């Protein structure tokens, strides 16, 4: 992060309040000890460490947060949340930011991660259980990375690791659940 003057007023808190409202986590407990950043296995790829991202939320720097890659790189390993001395659930905060970004219709820095999540849920709506082969094909098509992982995929196919045909067990139940959730979220 470069140094710059940050103006904080009441409006700044609307963002951290939104994180409390949607994710239920109050970032104001964080005293910036840095432990979450130290244990994060993916920090080496992040532009802001988890500690810095929490700080940015405290300061209400919404654009800085939304433009960061950090939450899209989080592997959800929960090391940070487990070790935080202030009991801040950092991993949940990162999920919350992702959910808020979609509500605000903001584009992620790593679109493929979001695409994966959406394909996954799309797949569930059809099949109820994950039809891995179908999902991989859809994902690779939509990200135009069809050849990436081809070698591994072929080997796995040969070993009959995937079921070739989807099973439709439970698809109907999942579709109903997700439809009701969507309705609630619109309300």
């Amino acid at each position, binding site marked *: 992060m470069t140094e710059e003057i940050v103006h904080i007023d009441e409006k700044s808190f609307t963002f951290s309040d939104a994180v409390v409202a*949607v*994710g*239920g986590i109050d970032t104001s407990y964080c005293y910036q000890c840095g432990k979450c950043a130290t244990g994060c*296995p*993916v920090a080496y*790829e992040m532009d802001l460490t988890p500690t810095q991202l929490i700080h940015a939320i405290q300061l209400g720097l919404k654009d800085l947060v939304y433009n960061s890659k950090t939450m899209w*790189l989080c*592997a*959800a*390993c*929960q*090391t940070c*949340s*487990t070790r935080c001395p202030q009991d801040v*659930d950092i991993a949940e905060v990162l*999920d919350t930011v*992702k*959910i808020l970004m*979609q509500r605000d219709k903001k584009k992620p820095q*790593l679109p*493929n*991660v*979001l*695409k*994966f*999540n*959406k394909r*996954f*849920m799309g797949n*569930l709506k059809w099949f*109820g*259980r*994950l039809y*891995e082969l179908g999902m*991989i094909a859809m*994902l690779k098509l939509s990200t135009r990375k069809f050849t*990436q*992982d081809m*070698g*591994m995929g072929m*080997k*796995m196919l040969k*070993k*009959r*690791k*995937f*079921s070739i045909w989807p099973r439709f*067990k*439970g698809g109907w*139940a*999942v579709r*109903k*659940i*997700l439809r*009701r*959730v969507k309705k*609630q*979220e619109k309300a």
Partner: protein
Amino acid sequence: MKYAYYPGCSLHSTGQEFDKSLLAVCEKLGVELVELEKWVCCGSTAAHNLSKVAATALPMANLALMPKMGLDEVVVPCAECFSKLKIAQHNCKTDKKLKRDVVEAIHKDCNDDAKVIHPLSIFAEEPLISRIPALVEKNLSGLKVVCYYGCLLTRPPKITQFDIAEYPETMDNVLRATGITTLDWDHKTICCGASFALSKPDIVVNLSHKIIEDAKEVGADAIAVACPMCHANLDTRQDDMEKEYGVHPQMPVLYFTQLMGYSFGMTPEELLLDKHLTDVSSLIEKANAPVEEEASPEEEEATSFQFDGHH
């Protein structure tokens, strides 16, 4: 002993070795697993990024199937599903509004009192832990194995309540009961990058490589895992590691249930050991080699005598 069983999607597909070996081991131990009828996916790595209600509703829809079966304990072998079910229960218990939304979404009562159990926990406790040695038919004491627990069995500890989060021993204790030697190492609970298996494989290759390197450093013949996602990352990415780092790790990665089954005298075919991408034949050879005596009885006596002498 009878439990409901939630296999989850992976165990019916890429992780079928885990399903098959778990069921075989349970049968030997006298544990009956009854699969939940009409179970659905728990939402896994994706749902929690998109909606908290959906991520809670999917696991709860599965737990809601249990009362009809008359069972209140469910065995969940996949660490990802285990964690998602536990987190959903916790969130329903602590967030009343969320619980209302979930009940509305699944059109069933929230079964947030169901006991969600990982098979390791039942194996590691009485009465099963004492039954294990008597079932061993193959002496595997020559094998050195590191136990990899990954992230989600132990974290977050206040929710999963599984062993000590930073340095768990449950899997070590279970495998030691079969006679296998398990080693101390640093990467028991360090993330392999699981949720990026498909969306950002470079992270997976890097993180999983570090885990395998550490296993090699301490002299492990194999890595034992309890999660199909950890297994996929550690087993199937070794070709990519060779491309990235120049050396093929050649590290067998097995489910702990496969090792248990092997010690119980089951064949590699029964346990689907040939399903793994990384060859396990070196391990099987080693397992079948005559066990070397490490120290003769006299020598052992001598050391214990010396130790006593210091008192």
